[in-house]
């Protein structure tokens, strides 16, 4: 059984730091790689070794397999951890790593390939009686075919563009009368957006929740699940606030969805950590969406609730070790919530916000975890993903986790970019989030630009400090009514 002694972390930002931490706790040496922008990023400062990728664009750095493998050889690592994003779900990267004689910390290349394509994944799973959103995987050729498919699966349906996502070329259709016009409009939009007018049909799931199951599978055929995460709070189809467990799952449903996820992993010959994403409708029917064949951004909430370090399990599995616990050993303990902190304009349609971090003091304390990839002085550029940190809280109950998150969001201090913190605060205070009945339309239905109404005292605080900043501190002696004051202690120091 190969004991991993040194890992190259083929990523940047918070996940590179996250992987480093678990590796160090296992006595493993860590190797960072960095683009020119990341020369002094936390993952470079923390890892035992760090090597330059020379360049800025993702294509010439974190996506450049040749450079990464070459550094891995030079640093004599045993294994490569891909993190999430970048090369993590590229089957050819997994293959390059194993071809180079190193361990890829993730599923086998073939597994990634099969599950990476919606068509092959659906084909595989439909044979195993896994519930999938009903619809066509191939483009529809005619209105007749569309009418037939729609009749089979039942309205409402969703027309989706084959050429790409992001809501473009997407149309909800509630009756057969609407169908011809909807298809035409969808094709036009798709054509404009992707230069590809092909569309396909799926059943429209009304107000679904996004529920995903974390699984762990070792190379001996043992597969277990670590319950669910609910990730319905999304903007631009990207998750922002997640929680574990979901308010929608009874122990029976958890067990049923968990078993389905385990069945999917077994059907795919899955090894390592993975996430099976489902849509759950209001009637508690669930439909397979896709498999994420790598560690998930929101994995920390599962770790907090189940007390299991998923990165350590990934490494142990990659070493060929058996899982050290069974399904019966894993138990829910309390409740966890994650708020993703993106450098985005919370008050301007979530546009990216770039700049230099001039102050950074994340929240701390009992049940608060901050997984971050920045520090004071970090440049937030347009080159990489705008997620700069993840704030996670854990409480004995959901209420406590919510109150803790409210406290932690308020305590979080960051200056230099706008962030999604005010958005997350809005979510945490929203009755629909608090009662747990929210679904993936939460942002569309409920999002108002967070109320930045300022009070008189706050405005006084800003103005007086703004005036001080300009080095035009009013003189105390001039006017008794003016009370912009320096504290005695500082005055004392100045007089020395």
């Amino acid at each position, binding site marked *: 059984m190969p004991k991993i002694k040194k890992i190259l972390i083929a990523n940047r930002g918070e996940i590179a730091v996250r992987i480093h931490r678990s590796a160090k706790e296992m006595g493993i040496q860590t190797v960072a790689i960095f683009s020119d922008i990341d020369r002094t990023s936390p993952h470079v400062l923390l890892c035992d070794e760090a090597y330059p990728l020379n360049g800025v664009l993702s294509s010439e750095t974190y996506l450049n397999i040749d450079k990464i493998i070459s550094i891995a050889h030079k640093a004599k690592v045993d294994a490569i951890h891909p993190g999430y994003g970048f090369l993590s779900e590229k089957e050819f990267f997994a293959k390059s790593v194993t071809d180079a004689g190193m361990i890829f910390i993730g599923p086998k290349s073939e597994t990634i390939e099969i599950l990476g394509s919606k068509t092959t994944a659906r084909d595989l799973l439909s044979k195993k009686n896994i519930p999938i959103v009903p619809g066509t995987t191939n483009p529809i050729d005619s209105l007749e075919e569309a009418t037939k498919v729609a009749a089979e699966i039942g309205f409402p349906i969703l027309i989706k563009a084959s050429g790409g996502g992001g809501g473009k070329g997407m149309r909800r259709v509630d009756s057969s009368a609407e169908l011809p016009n909807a298809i035409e409009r969808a094709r036009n939009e798709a054509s*404009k957006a992707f230069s590809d007018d092909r569309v396909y049909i799926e059943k429209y799931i009304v107000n679904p929740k996004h529920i995903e199951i974390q699984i762990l599978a070792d190379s001996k055929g043992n597969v277990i699940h670590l319950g669910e995460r609910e990730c319905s709070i999304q903007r631009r189809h990207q998750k922002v606030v997640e929680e574990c467990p979901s308010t929608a799952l009874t122990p029976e449903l958890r067990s049923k969805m968990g078993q389905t996820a385990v069945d999917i992993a077994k059907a795919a010959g899955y090894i390592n950590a993975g996430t099976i994403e489902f849509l759950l409708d209001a009637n508690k029917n669930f439909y397979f969406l896709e498999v994420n064949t790598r560690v998930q951004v929101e994995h920390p909430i599962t770790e907090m609730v189940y007390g299991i370090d998923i990165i350590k399990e990934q490494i142990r599995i990659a070493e060929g070790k058996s899982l050290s616990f069974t399904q019966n050993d894993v138990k829910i303990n309390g409740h966890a919530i994650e708020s993703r902190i993106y450098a985005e304009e919370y008050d301007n349609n979530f546009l990216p916000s770039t700049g230099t971090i001039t102050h950074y003091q994340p929240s701390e304390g009992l049940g608060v975890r901050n997984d971050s990839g920045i520090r004071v002085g970090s440049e937030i550029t347009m080159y990489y993903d705008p997620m700069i940190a993840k704030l996670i809280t854990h409480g004995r109950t959901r209420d406590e986790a919510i109150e803790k998150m409210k406290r932690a969001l308020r305590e979080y201090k960051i200056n*230099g970019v706008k962030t999604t913190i005010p958005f997350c605060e809005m979510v945490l205070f929203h009755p629909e989030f608090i009662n747990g009945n929210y679904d993936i339309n939460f942002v569309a239905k409920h999002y108002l630009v967070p109320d930045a109404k300022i009070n008189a005292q706050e405005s006084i605080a*800003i103005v007086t400090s703004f005036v001080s900043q300009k080095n*035009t501190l009013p003189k105390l002696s001039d006017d008794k009514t003016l*009370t*912009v004051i320096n504290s005695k202690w500082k005055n004392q120091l100045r007089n020395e």
Partner: protein
Amino acid sequence: MNRTTINIAEYSFEYDESRGIITNSYGKNVSADVEKISNCEFSVLVDGKSFHIFFSTTQNSPNATVNNFIFEIQKETFRDKLNKKLHKESVNNNSITLRAPMPGLVTKILLLEGTAVNAGDGVLIIEAMKMENEIKSLHSGTIKKIFVQEKQTVEKNDQLFTIE
């Protein structure tokens, strides 16, 4: 005249630099215990209430951050104020120029100069941080001029296009 008006949200203050007095719009002198922590960081106590204030100059106008909310600070001298009042009516409202809301790469120009647009129509796409951002016209009219080309990088507030 060395008096400055400072506006934050709905609040307005007047700062008399020579006398060192800050007055709010109701004519009351403003009172606070200010302590500078660093160039961008202040602790302010107003009637005991504690505020941790940050300033940022990376945006186009000075910003103050309180509890992760960001407020723009508008400064104007009395002369500015007078000028604004006098010239208010003569500002040309017929042509509107849209500026880049963030730095990025122009990946696609969707409409040509001279095209008629409705408010909400996408005009071009800027890619930043792996995301495509469709820049939409906020007004109906005709695209008079497009200042950028595909594959061009833009800085925040660069002119993108003018609608007339």
